[in-house]
């Protein structure tokens, strides 16, 4: 126990390379494997053909069987290395009957050779084919779902920034009757996540006739107390003298908000923007309830529905899953530093 603790709490380096250093890097290496491995496996699998997908035990690389066009046959014929009398011949298979296979030599298509299928070894090559992606996009409505997801994410984020920054400005820079009460009530609803007010929220959406509209998905999410709180805390640090000076110069309150406070609060706004994009892109439960028309689905809802109806077509599901995680991975590659510091300093997700 003592050694575990000391292993975990080393902070100063030693001169010698120590057992604990090895353990540290083993842990971290395993971490890389466990965190990235599954995603990597998913990406590899998304290139596999239907027959490779159901193959057991699975192989890492996406193999595809070679095939050949032979005169006299309409379809491409799969190629096999066949052992006959100790000799290995490269033959094309015409069809299978039980455990017997009927093959021909592509160079000499007139003669049919019979062989036992256990003597057959498929001729394969590694092939990163995009067939799954093409077929998936065709049958999955990817473009429509992507468009809906982008609309929801962008519109909701812009509105979130506007609505919350206005409220944060009022609650940080003014003392007015009721400001305390408003602030407290908003903080109180931090406790009420969407998941516990589903039924009544759905009633309100229905009364507003927002069922099956993207507005119905967007509007209820834009007044986020966490975001408002974050912006307010940041705006409190902006000196009031700036505001007084602007007022003396004759600026209206709106101009003070739009042209002094907002530019100065841009670091906090950027953090909220990144979070809001992540939240809205990944949202599932609320869009699932509001949207029932297939052509209004967001990517997440579409993907969940897709896997429900095409339970066996894993190759397409995998390809679509990969497409869905591309935008997030790009955000991660470019913005991971600002995201991680953002979370570390605000503690929100």
């Amino acid at each position: 126990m003592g050694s575990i603790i000391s292993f975990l709490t080393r902070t100063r380096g030693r001169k010698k390379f120590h057992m604990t250093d090895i353990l540290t890097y083993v842990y971290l290496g395993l971490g890389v494997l466990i965190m990235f491995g599954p995603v990597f496996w998913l990406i590899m699998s998304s290139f596999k053909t239907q027959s490779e997908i159901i193959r057991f035990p699975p192989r890492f690389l996406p193999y595809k069987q070679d095939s050949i066009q032979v005169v006299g046959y309409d379809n491409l014929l799969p190629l096999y290395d066949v052992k006959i009398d100790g000799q290995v011949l490269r033959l094309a298979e015409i069809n299978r009957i039980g455990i017997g296979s009927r093959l021909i030599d592509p160079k000499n298509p007139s003669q049919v050779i019979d062989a036992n299928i256990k003597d057959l070894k498929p001729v394969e090559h590694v092939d990163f084919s995009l067939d799954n992606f093409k077929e998936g996009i065709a049958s999955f409505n990817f473009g429509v779902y992507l468009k809906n997801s982008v609309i929801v994410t962008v519109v909701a984020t812009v509105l979130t920034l506007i609505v919350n920054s206005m409220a944060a400005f009022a609650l940080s820079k003014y003392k007015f009757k009721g400001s305390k009460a408003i602030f407290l009530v908003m903080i109180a609803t931090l406790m009420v996540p969407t998941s516990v007010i589903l039924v009544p929220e759905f009633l309100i959406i229905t009364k507003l006739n927002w069922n099956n509209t993207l507005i119905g998905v967007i509007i209820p999410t834009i007044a986020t107390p966490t975001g408002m709180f974050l912006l307010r805390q940041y705006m409190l640090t902006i000196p009031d003298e700036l505001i007084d000076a602007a007022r003396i110069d004759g600026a209206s309150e709106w101009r003070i908000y739009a042209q002094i406070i907002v530019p100065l609060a841009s670091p906090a706004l950027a953090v909220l923007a990144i979070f809001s994009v992540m939240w809205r892109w990944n949202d599932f439960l609320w869009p699932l309830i509001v949207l029932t028309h297939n052509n209004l689905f967001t990517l997440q809802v579409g993907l969940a529905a897709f896997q429900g109806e095409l339970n066996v077509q894993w190759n397409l599901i995998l390809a679509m899953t990969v497409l869905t995680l591309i935008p997030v991975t790009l955000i991660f590659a470019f913005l991971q530093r600002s995201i991680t510091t953002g979370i570390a300093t605000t503690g929100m997700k």
Partner: protein
Amino acid sequence: MLNEKTKKNIFQLLGDWVGFFFSRSYDLIASGLDRIIFDPLQRLVGMLRMPYFFVLPNLLVFTVFSLLPVLLNFGYAFTKDPNLFLADRPWAGVESFKQIFTCANFLDPNSCLVDLFWRSVSNTVQFVIFQVALMVIVSMVTALILNGKIKARGFFRSVYFYPVLLSPIVVALLWRWILQENGLFNGVLSGLGLSTQAFLTNSTWARFWMVMISTWSNMGFYTLILLAGLQSIPTEMYDAAKMDGADRLQTFKNIVFPLLMPTLLVVTVLSLIRAVQVFDIVYAFTGGGPGSATMYLVQYIYLNGFSSPIKQLGLASAASLLMAGVLVILTIIQLSLRKEEV
């Protein structure tokens, strides 16, 4: 991930262009709005009433979509029948609650009148206990290691963080693919000469993997918070301990642990709040099955409120109210911990 220099160049080019157009159009819109709406408005109502107009949009959305639903929830919980509109719902008093709480033996969901509710409660409790414990331990260990003297800390930190960004649906599908009958794990098992497992259709395995997967997808977030907490411990503390001749175990027990305690508590409560609401991952991972082995509370609400052919909105809302109660208590604890921390 990309080379720093390339990144900078891309950003600079993009930034210059976007920045120019953005600031120009922003100024235009802002001053336009001022001229058309806000300047006349301020003349009309006076400067002192302007803040009300600034909070108005937020307050409106907030009232309609958060506050009002909370109140309406009571209306549903105390009425019955599948009608969505409250006016059409006959009064039922505490009938829904009675139904939920009618059990011969509360520890055995089979003996309950509404057996799925208690089953989902016990599933959720089980999930929360294992998941929170695992999450806190794993992210604590990872944070401590990342806080040690290691090379490429930034890289490793972001490695653990990557799954946090993935959507729950993607996470669920990813793991279903790996755990399915002829998936990667079973391939490895059979390669080792072991028998394959029904990871998704055996209740115990399904529950086990739900805990593992949600830990996998969220641990980066808690690791970050704990790491920030560890890094806020001043190095003088370690130096002082060293001067006093404390060994590493003593340093950890007497300095690191007590100073990290508030952060650890926040992490525990946050992950508790999150675990109670588990839904998205399980929806696409097992769909609540096999049977109802991984049916959790939110799914019970969703089932009764939306997806089942005979909607039992009263039961859904009663369950919501009970869950909200638990969450309120947890959040109050979290907020008071925050205050202490600051």
